[in-house]
């Protein structure tokens, strides 16, 4: 039995040839040859259909094959050999073409899964061995040679290399990785050599999660799809009832069965999902994970975008531009004390200060105690017998620390120049200010212009940073609104306010500290280099490569996907009515009906396939130099 399914394509081709032969024989006047050819074609092409119908029937399942089988037997009975041959051929050929085209729409997912690594080279007990990917455990020391695939997520412990991370980020420019850097399963070592310590294995790797997410997303249904499902639920039984009616009225079994076969809502059922699959597939290829049809739908309606500043509009990799003391003390010594306290801080500004101290080769080995973090403002702690308060202006005011005119002027000047000014007081006296500056992302201006061109009406920036820095960024990027010095919960409040006013809000942040705001927006977007677990869970759209251009692409893509889905829907509904009316009025017969039916299914698939190649129109290059801080 299996061989029939196996040779289905051969059978299809053979029956097609026989039909051609029959037509030639007919022209030449050999009517017996014609009949024999047609009957043979019918019989061989019926085999796989008949078999499938039988298999389903044995398990008491109803199938479209059963309908076709009934129709073919009916046609043979009344001697309509042309009909029977053409119908069976079209049914098989249609399925073949649909399979081929569907494969194309699914190709992006297939390409992704094909990139999954299969084996790993590990060192265990001093021995180098090659093992299957499933046998790698956390803590294994894994070797990756040039051209090799990183098998699991982990940290580099020896060596350095350039890695192609396109499987995870969609970005094809290689990234340089050295000791301490995170590498992801599925990425490829371009040149260099690294040994890594396995941290996440099996289904826990970022790559495995991406695949699972995309698979889930492609299955999940959009509103349009659910509407179509409901439609099909009413439609299918009513067609059956109608066909029984047709039979009772006309007493014509063939017409009734034709009606049933032709009315099968193929294009209707496949039209919306296939657009979704293509759209999501296109996104995945570009490093944009869209979590399902519903998200596509909602995203395409977004008219207001709220951006977090740091890490979203700017690179988020701030640098210390100045350590300015207000007394005669050594700036390095002051920085050293501040850095010792900031060691325990998880705030990115704190980490920047620690990094600067390390770069200046300062000894920051003493640990602080009695650390108290004032969320959104700074922190205070004891270190080496000194009491330090480090943070923004508000924190200094809260602690009743005196800000002299000199200090105030200096801070304001630094802020105007685009820095974040961090005050620090030692033993209740403000000793100096550390300036930190961040840079606007290179592609920000272009990406924002694209978003606006695609229909975003309002762009707002929210930041916990100071007023001056915020203003500079907002002006440079041409944002409609900005709000500075906000706490995380105030960002959430702001997003909810916009929602109440009737805006469809998209919130873009860097995933971790913006998670609450991202979760409260209609559509949450997370920028995550490589994607953190949190951002992949809370956000609706994940931008894997950390590029704003991906954002613009995702938005345009969502609009294109929904447009495509609507085209398919209107087309499919239209075709159903044409077919039904055609059959009832006698203009469409079994064979021609099958042809229109199969053709319509192919057309919706082909239409959806256009989405795979979708790319937003290239706009002229905007040049924004890497200048500091006009952030």
């Amino acid at each position, binding site marked *: 039995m299996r061989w029939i399914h196996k040779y289905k394509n051969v059978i299809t081709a053979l029956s097609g040839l026989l039909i051609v032969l029959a037509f030639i024989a007919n022209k030449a006047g050999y009517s017996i040859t014609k009949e024999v050819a047609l009957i043979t074609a019918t019989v061989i092409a019926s085999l796989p259909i008949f078999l499938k119908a039988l298999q389903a029937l044995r398990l008491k399942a109803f199938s479209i094959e059963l309908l076709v089988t009934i129709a073919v037997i009916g046609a043979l009975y009344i001697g309509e050999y042309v009909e029977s041959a053409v119908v069976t051929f079209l049914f098989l050929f249609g*399925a073949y073409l649909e399979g081929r085209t569907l494969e194309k729409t699914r190709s992006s997912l297939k390409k992704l899964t094909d990139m999954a690594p299969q084996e790993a080279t590990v060192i265990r007990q001093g021995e180098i061995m090659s093992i299957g990917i499933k046998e790698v455990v956390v803590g294994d020391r894994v070797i990756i040679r040039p051209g090799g695939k990183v098998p699991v997520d982990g940290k580099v412990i020896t060596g350095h290399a350039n890695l192609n991370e396109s499987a995870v980020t969609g970005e094809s420019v290689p990234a340089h990785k050295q000791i301490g850097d995170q590498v992801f399963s599925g990425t490829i070592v371009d040149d260099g050599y690294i040994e890594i310590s396995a941290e996440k294995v099996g289904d826990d790797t970022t790559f495995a999660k991406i695949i699972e997410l995309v698979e889930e997303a492609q299955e999940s249904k959009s509103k349009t799809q659910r509407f179509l499902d409901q439609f099909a639920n009413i439609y299918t039984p009513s067609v059956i009832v109608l066909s029984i009616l047709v039979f009772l009225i006309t007493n014509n079994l063939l017409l009734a069965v034709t009606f049933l076969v032709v009315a099968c809502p193929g294009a209707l059922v496949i039209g919306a999902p296939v657009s979704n699959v293509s759209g999501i597939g296109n996104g995945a290829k570009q490093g944009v994970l869209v979590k399902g049809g519903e998200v596509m739908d909602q995203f395409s309606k977004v008219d207001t975008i709220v951006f977090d500043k740091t890490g979203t509009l700017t690179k988020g990799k701030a640098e210390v531009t100045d350590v300015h003391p207000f007394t005669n003390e050594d700036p390095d010594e002051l920085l050293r004390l501040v850095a010792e306290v900031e060691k325990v801080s998880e705030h990115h500004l704190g980490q920047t200060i620690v990094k600067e101290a390390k770069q200046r080769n300062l000894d920051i080995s003493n640990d602080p105690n009695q650390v108290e973090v004032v969320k959104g403002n700074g922190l205070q702690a004891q270190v080496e017998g000194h009491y330090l308060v480090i943070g923004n202006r508000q924190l200094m005011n809260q602690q009743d620390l005196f800000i002299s005119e000199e200090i105030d002027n200096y801070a304001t000047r630094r802020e105007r120049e685009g820095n974040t000014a961090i005050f620090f007081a030692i033993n209740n006296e403000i000793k100096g200010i550390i300036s930190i500056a961040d840079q606007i992302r290179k592609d920000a201006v272009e990406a924002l212009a694209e978003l606006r061109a695609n229909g975003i009406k309002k762009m707002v920036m929210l930041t916990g940073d100071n007023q001056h820095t915020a203003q500079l960024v907002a002006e440079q990027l041409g944002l409609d609104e900005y709000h500075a010095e906000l706490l995380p919960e105030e960002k959430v409040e702001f997003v909810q306010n916009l929602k109440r006013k009737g805006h469809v809000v998209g919130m873009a942040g860097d995933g971790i500290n913006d998670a609450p705001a991202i979760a409260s927006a209609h559509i949450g977007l997370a920028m995550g280099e490589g994607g953190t677990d949190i951002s992949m869970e809370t956000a609706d759209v994940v931008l894997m490569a950390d590029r704003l251009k991906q954002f613009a692409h995702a938005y345009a893509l969502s609009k294109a996907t929904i447009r495509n889905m609507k085209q398919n829907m209107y087309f499919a509904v239209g075709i159903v009515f044409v077919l039904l009316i055609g059959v009832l009025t006698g203009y469409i017969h079994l064979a021609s009906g099958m042809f229109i039916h199969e053709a319509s299914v192919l057309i919706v698939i082909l239409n959806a396939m256009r989405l795979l190649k979708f790319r937003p129109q290239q706009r002229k290059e905007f040049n924004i130099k890497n200048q500091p801080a006009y952030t």
Partner: protein
Amino acid sequence: MKKAVFQLEPLTCPSCIKKIESTLGKTSGVHSTKVLFNSSKVRVEFEENQVGVQQIEGVINKLGYPVTSKKVS
């Protein structure tokens, strides 16, 4: 309760989804069935003391969808 994922040959007709889901749904010991149409996978949750993986695979095969690989967890 166990979970099994069966990889099938590429699914082409959406009506296959209903066919597989409803037939497996009638099999005793099967808790839930989900057909992932686009990745051509069937995800089944089942009670291992009532029904075996082989049996579930058999049902899918008998319906006319050869199972190419499977993963049980």
